[in-house]
């Protein structure tokens, strides 16, 4: 009896937000695995790309920072370089997750029009696949930071919380944009533009504090306080600025819920509008 109850599904039935996702957890993992797998299939370096990318991202950040310090005449210290490394790796995760997530529905047109399953799986799996690359980058950072003896403090307990907030915002934004991109294909170009310019409105290459008034704008951007927070707990050994972090948390929780709701409303017309 219980079995039948479980399998019973009617269109009229209201879907629980997380219940259906739990039911389809194998699918979420499988699609994530597929996204990782095909990214490195038929490539020369294969999974080495996952290691090389963060190195390149950090390299770009460091070059920019050296250029800044030359122009301004101030020197820079070791801590500043590692701070840029932490920030740029996190930003790279956000950018990759959003970029990949935005295209997730239209890249899987076949699935959307031919088979039923909760469509949230697709943008969520894209973000999870980007998260795997992020995890590789984190592992590299941990090794480097322990070699240079950056030090361990109680503040490191903030790291999982901050990463969770960042992931949740990335997922929320991806869910919304994947759905928008399904209806209007120009969304993916807008996303590219926003991500390109976004790096100037996010404290990636420099800290928000060093910019004064302009810095406040960067903290309004929900990614800003998270990057600041990560740098402050890992490098400066200070607790994050809770006031601004509340802004990020609101986006991570309320924004996520709202974007999911919008996605669910629009979901029923995906197959005919794609």
């Amino acid at each position, binding site marked *: 009896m219980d079995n039948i109850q479980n399998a019973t599904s009617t269109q009229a039935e209201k879907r629980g937000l997380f219940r259906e996702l739990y039911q389809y957890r194998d699918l979420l993992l499988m699609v994530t695995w597929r996204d990782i797998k*095909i990214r490195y299939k038929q490539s020369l370096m294969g999974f080495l790309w996952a290691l090389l990318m963060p190195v390149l991202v950090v390299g770009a950040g460091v070059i920019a920072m050296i250029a800044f310090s030359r122009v301004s005449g101030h020197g820079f210290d070791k801590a500043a370089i590692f701070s840029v490394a932490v920030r740029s790796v996190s930003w790279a995760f956000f950018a990759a997750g959003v970029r990949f997530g935005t295209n997730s529905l239209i890249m899987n047109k076949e699935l959307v029009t031919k088979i039923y399953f909760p469509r949230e799986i697709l943008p969520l799996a894209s973000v999870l696949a980007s998260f795997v690359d992020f995890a590789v980058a984190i592992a590299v950072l941990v090794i480097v930071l322990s070699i240079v003896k950056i030090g361990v403090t109680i503040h490191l307990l903030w790291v999982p919380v901050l990463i969770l907030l960042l992931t949740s915002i990335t997922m929320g934004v991806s869910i919304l944009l994947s759905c928008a991109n399904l209806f209007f294909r120009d969304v993916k170009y807008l996303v590219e533009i926003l991500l390109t310019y976004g790096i100037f409105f996010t404290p990636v290459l420099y800290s928000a504090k060093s910019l004064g008034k302009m810095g406040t704008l960067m903290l309004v951007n929900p990614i800003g306080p998270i990057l600041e927070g990560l740098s402050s707990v890992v490098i400066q050994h200070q607790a994050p600025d809770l006031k601004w972090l509340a802004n990020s948390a609101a986006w991570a929780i309320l924004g996520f819920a709202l974007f999911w709701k919008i996605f669910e409303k629009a979901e029923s017309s995906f197959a005919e509008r794609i």
Partner: protein
Amino acid sequence: MAGTIYVDGVWKKFARGENFDSLRDLIPGLAKRLLSRPVSQELRKKEFWALQDVSFSVKPGEALAIIGPNGSGKSTMLKLLSRILKPNKGSISVTGRLGALIELGAGFHPDLTGRENIYLNGTILGMKRAEIDRKFDEIVDFSGLSAFLDMPVKRYSSGMYARLGFSVAVHVDPDVLLVDEVLSVGDYHFQEQCFRKMQQFCRQGTTLVFVSHNLTAVSTLCTAALVLKSGTPVFRGDISGAIQKYHSFYEADLKSRHLEIVDSRLMVNGGSDANVIEPGARVVFEVEVKALAEIRDAHPGVQVHTPDGQCLFATAASRLTKDRLNLLPGQSATLVFSFDMNLQGGVFLLGFTVSPEIETPGEWLYYNPRLKRLVLTEDRRCAGVLHLNPSLDIVSQPGVIDPRSCQEVSL
């Protein structure tokens, strides 16, 4: 109960073009869509009804065929049942685990290997990982592709692709199986294998909804049918009635300016008009025609076809008698054919034609390959469509005790 389908007053509309013409319409349009779920029944411009007021139900274990011309809404109906699309009005309820063969291998990723795709496609179709682990060998055996498991599916032939897709899909073990014209791929033996698998599902009590243009397959597999025409259900009932309804859409093509049919009757043993016939019966087929133009030395003929139009039997006056059909305009005649109905177990169509004095293939004074439909009951002594009135005597040789010869006889 698992395996029940209820469809109640379902309407579905589609847009012919894009819905938003400009960015100006988009913002208010989108806002309205998101804030309320408008169940507007009026059609906006460029919209049309793909399905109109469709209601039916399927009991557990029943096999329902959905037939109709191209564009009549069959595939839309299947997509609604499988929850890919949502109706604009009405409700659909499907209880139990649903398996849909709408397109084989739709979830395959070309860069992944066969093995990886079995797992990927299996989970997409609703199986758990552990379940696939358990059924993996069975799936591979069914597909017959064990030698190609580690090859990316982009290097597969289209037949191999379909085989793997079907193999995964049928191992979902659904309570309700939706099948959309997928048997047409693969070679003959694989088609047969698929067909047997579907029959096995039916015997196990799986509810089946089958969309196909292959009317022979439909009549073998299904017990009931729904006929759609331009999105409207026009018939729900037994297969033979559905096939007749389906063919009746094309009745207009059969009009002749030479003669018309006044009446036609099929009789067994001098009884009245019948369409359910016992295998092997001697039948009399009477056709009463009226000439619209002068007809001279014409050859009336009769044929028996499968529902798909394959000709099983044909004969005409030129082969049977020296008599010819001669009529003046307005004059009538009755043609009386008789023959043994050595067919069994299925739906057949009885055709009637009149060819001109000099018979030329494809030239007719009158042509209707499906004037009447017949249902032949099943003779439990045999299978297939021919009724050859079989019998068997097993003759034991007294005194012979070689076991090998006994075996040969029993074979």
